[in-house]
């Protein structure tokens, strides 16, 4: 018994103190995967904020966009042209989703739209496999001139090893979030997005076109998906298995709140760092595997005590 308590409450912290370089390394690893979770969650938040639709297909959009990019390149399209074409494909997808799914289903209950995004998920899986095949592919990191190799920074008498691609991913993600924050808070389009999120009829009455706004948010979510797909693909490879990781966005959203962009970021980082730290220091005690369930347990705790998340709007039901 004392052995167990020692293992839980004392030993991990002793280890952290004894090898601070390892702690920093673990924090960094956690931050990197947290950033990627956050990016996926960000795609969800964009669409949820503006249209109230929980887009189950966000995960597959990550895979689909990366697959399109790599697939086009395999068929002989130069890397940057393939990138431009993929962006165009995401734009076409946004228009198609608005025309085929959102417009006919406007004013239907949320659950119907949610189910429609399930349909979209399986459609994109099928389409992706049909055109590009189901085999995992290697991200075209070199052609896109993504950095490779790593930095070794001496720290606390040891080393912090940082993959350059991870550093780049973190920087690009930060820039993207900053751009979105400015767009949302300072511009007409952003105000229109928030307006649509608040009240459809009022938005219409001041001349905002719902269709246009929906295309914009789905396109923005598509771009975020593409960036996520490239970054994630560069670390492992591009395959439909990525979609499983996209499910991690769900606990991130529960933690951060479904309507909050900062929430998605901070939620992602908490989950990313939490699971890496948990795995590294407490994992051996529990026979490891913490990474696969940690996020969901955190989400469960939040659902019990703070269902609106850290930054979400308070849910007040008037009776």
């Amino acid at each position: 018994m004392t052995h167990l308590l020692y293992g839980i409450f004392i030993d991990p912290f002793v280890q952290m103190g004894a090898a601070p370089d390892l702690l920093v390394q673990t924090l960094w690893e956690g931050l990197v995967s947290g950033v990627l979770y956050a990016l996926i969650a960000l795609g969800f938040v964009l669409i949820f904020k503006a249209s109230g639709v929980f887009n189950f297909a966000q995960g597959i959009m990550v895979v689909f966009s990366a697959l399109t990019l790599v697939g086009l390149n395999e068929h002989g399209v130069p890397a940057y042209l393939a990138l431009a074409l993929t962006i165009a494909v995401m734009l076409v997808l946004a228009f198609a989703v608005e025309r085929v799914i959102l417009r006919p289903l406007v004013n239907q209950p949320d659950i119907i739209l949610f189910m429609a995004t399930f349909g979209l998920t399986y459609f994109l899986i099928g389409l992706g496999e049909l055109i590009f095949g189901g085999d995992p592919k290697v991200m075209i990191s070199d052609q896109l001139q993504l950095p490779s190799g790593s930095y070794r920074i001496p720290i606390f008498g040891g080393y912090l090893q940082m993959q350059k691609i991870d550093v780049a991913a973190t920087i690009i993600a930060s820039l993207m979030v900053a751009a979105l924050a400015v767009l949302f808070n300072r511009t007409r389009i952003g105000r229109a997005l928030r307006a649509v999120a608040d009240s459809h009829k009022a938005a219409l009455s001041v001349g905002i076109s719902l269709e246009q706004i929906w295309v914009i948010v789905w396109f923005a979510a598509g771009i975020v998906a593409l960036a996520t797909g490239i970054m994630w693909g560069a670390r492992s490879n591009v395959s439909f298995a990525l979609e499983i990781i996209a499910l991690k966005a769900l606990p991130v959203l529960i933690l951060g709140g479904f309507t909050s962009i900062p929430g998605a970021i901070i939620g992602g980082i908490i989950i990313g760092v939490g699971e890496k730290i948990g795995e590294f220091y407490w994992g051996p005690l529990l026979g490891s595997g913490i990474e696969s369930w940690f996020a969901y347990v955190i989400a469960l705790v939040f659902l019990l005590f703070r269902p609106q998340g850290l930054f979400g709007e308070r849910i007040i039901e008037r009776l």
Partner: protein
Amino acid sequence: MGRSVGGPILEVEGISLSFGGVVALQAVSLDVREHEIRAIIGPNGAGKSSLLNVINGFYHPQKGSVSFKGRKRRRVDPHEVAQQGIARTFQNIALFRGMTALDNLMTGRTLKMKSNFLHQAVYWGAARREELEHRAKVEEIIDFLEIQHIRRTPVGQLPYGLQKRVELGRALAAEPDLLLLDEPMAGMNIEEKQDMCRFVLDVNDQFGTTIVLIEHDMSVVMDLSDRVAVLDYGRKIADGTPDEVRHHRAVIDAYLGVAH
């Protein structure tokens, strides 16, 4: 700007609207002249809001037509109606609750803004200048409506009367030619009603805006409006100056009930 009532700006002809078996409007026709204040009154469920929603493009009538500024239109969406110069408020306030009063008014400028998406995305040059110009216009409206002190308050936190005023402000920010007000004084106390009456008159007088308003409070309507149309069970039963309408047999019956 002195106000002189001109020719018809809006003509509604033979509008019939039903939802399934429920008839909301039956062959309703009326016209609205430029610069006038036109009231639509009637008992609950008479079809007043439905008519406004037809004019505004929320509902598409089965029969009849609406012409605005001489252009007849078939089927239009609300945001297109807004583009043509019609703004409105709602019976149950429809504000953007999470936004400040200022931002709510800025959304009213949506259609006046021209800078493209790319500008918006990077927030440079034109978009920035434009934002400032529109800000100046919105500040004028804020002064006009005397809501300077709540400029930065999220509207969800404001009392009801002020929310109504912000909603009027958002409609005014679009500089509409025609303003539709759906029960602008509903649920207000006497003082708030008087303020709102003053604003409606001032808008009409200073900006020359044509106003169509729906109202329950008879005394308000009689004081404010140039002409009054009366609806009952989806039909127009009377139309004329406040005095004519007041003494109209059918109107008295509709409001007070008829002995059977």
